[in-house]
């Protein structure tokens, strides 16, 4: 059963349309991604779902108490500099009727309760922010751009934390413009551009829509025009001594069979990713 249903959502600021027509539904227990470029309408969409903004059109149904059962982690929200981590969690826990254990949450996000907010690193601030979104024992957590500006290590730690949230049975609505994050975490993804939904699918489904393209790059001493006639090959480009061939999943074997062994050096293969899928969908 859908826990969040958004139908034909529209929101504008003055005469600037932020969200034109967005519909999607989130099933209980899944991690649902909203992806798109900056300015695509992602944040406005989830802020409407969270009840922070009033839609100009369409309907939003959330099968949970918006205040008590929806935890929200906002983009760019800070705490007072001299507030300590433990105090922040105790404070937010006091707001809810049925809060989670602060001790367990601190343990889960790995933060020192005595640390002052001003001294936390970017990653620690995000983990605190996630902990604050979870302290009310929510059924739904809305997380907006939670790894933007983090270093790779901190990003990975945050991802691990999100995976553990799912194990608690919390439904997660995750806003991101970071495709690797979405591919790794989300069960389903809505791709948003220009205030409308371009596609909804699993990350694997979205990648498959681009045809499951393989890209092979290598250097060679022999002519490569003959590769164009192979059925497995889609395209061949030569640039600065590097040959790039795209094709289906058998393209690598076809190339190796067609060219003499010794003629190939520096070989690299890439499978298309969410990035490719996103770029293909948004027409770049």
């Amino acid at each position, binding site marked *: 059963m859908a826990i969040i249903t958004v139908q034909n959502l529209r929101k504008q600021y003055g005469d600037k349309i932020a969200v034109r027509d967005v519909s999607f539904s989130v099933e209980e227990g899944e991690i649902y991604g909203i992806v798109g470029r900056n300015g695509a309408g992602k944040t406005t969409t989830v802020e409407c779902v969270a009840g922070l903004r009033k839609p100009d059109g369409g309907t939003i149904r959330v099968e949970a108490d918006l205040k008590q059962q929806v935890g*929200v982690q906002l983009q760019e929200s800070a705490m007072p500099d*001299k*507030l300590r981590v433990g105090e922040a969690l105790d404070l937010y826990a006091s*707001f*809810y009727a049925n809060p989670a254990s602060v001790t367990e949450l601190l343990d889960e996000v790995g933060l020192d309760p005595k640390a002052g907010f001003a001294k936390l690193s970017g990653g620690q601030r995000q983990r605190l922010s996630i902990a604050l979104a979870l302290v009310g024992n929510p059924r739904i957590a809305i997380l907006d751009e939670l790894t933007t500006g983090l270093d790779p290590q901190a990003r990975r730690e945050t991802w691990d934390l999100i995976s553990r949230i799912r194990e608690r049975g919390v439904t997660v609505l995750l806003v991101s413009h970071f495709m690797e994050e979405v591919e790794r975490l989300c069960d389903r993804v809505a791709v948003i551009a220009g205030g409308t939904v371009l596609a909804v699918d699993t990350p694997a489904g979205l990648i498959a829509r681009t045809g499951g393209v393989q890209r092979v790059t290598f250097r060679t001493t022999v002519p490569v025009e003959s590769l164009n006639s192979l059925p497995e090959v889609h395209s061949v480009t030569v640039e600065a001594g590097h040959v790039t061939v795209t094709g289906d999943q058998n393209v690598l074997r076809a190339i190796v069979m067609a060219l003499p062994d010794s003629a190939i050096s520096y070989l690299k293969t890439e499978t298309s990713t969410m990035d490719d899928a996103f770029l293909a969908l948004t027409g770049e």
Partner: protein
Amino acid sequence: MAVTAPQVRRLTSVETKLYLREPAVVFFAVGLPIALMLILGGTIPGFRDPDPALGGLRPIDTHLPGMMIILSVLTCAFSLLPTVLVTYRERGILKRMSTTPVSPVTVLGVQLVLNVAMSLFTTVLMLVLANLVYDVPFPQAPLAFTGILLLGMVSSLAIGLLLAALAPTSRIVQGLGMAVFFPSLFFAGVWVPHDLMPDVLRTIAEFTPSGAFGAALVDVLATGSAQWPHVALMAGWGVVATVAAVRFFRWS
């Protein structure tokens, strides 16, 4: 959204700690008014001489503590309260809280109560020290004195709330606060007592919120009662400022 006891308890405890962790707050709202009272009381000539116009009381018994209490109240109202609230809004703290079950009434109420408590604490400490050091008598009409004090605090804080509602950034609210603070101190009679002001200026001053507060507070210390027009003016300013603050206040 209901106001619950755990919310009020935690918010009060956290906000109190945050105030106490800012040495500047404790200095300007508590230390400075008390220190000025003690230093000026001991150094300004004539402050310790009985004045027939005050029914034989000394300026140190009436005008000086009255003005130093106002200094503390206006510091809370025009500097501390609006700066905290606008900084909270600027940093997304209020918006974040608005996604939780805590009511805005609780968040604002705790701030107001804390500022009232801080000024009350300053007042009591000041009166006790003044009594011990300069033999200043305690207010002869404690109930009337407390009533005037609370009314003055609430109307001043309401104006502070209005500043917080109108100022878009914490820098602007600090500037705006100072622009209101210094004229208010003047109108209250901190630099020139109302008695020494030219008639026109005195009339204008007593129509301002801090002027009415200053006049009523000195009156109640000197005579044990205040004039109704001053009381009505404070209440009127308080109501107008509250209504406007509620109308214009934004959470994000």
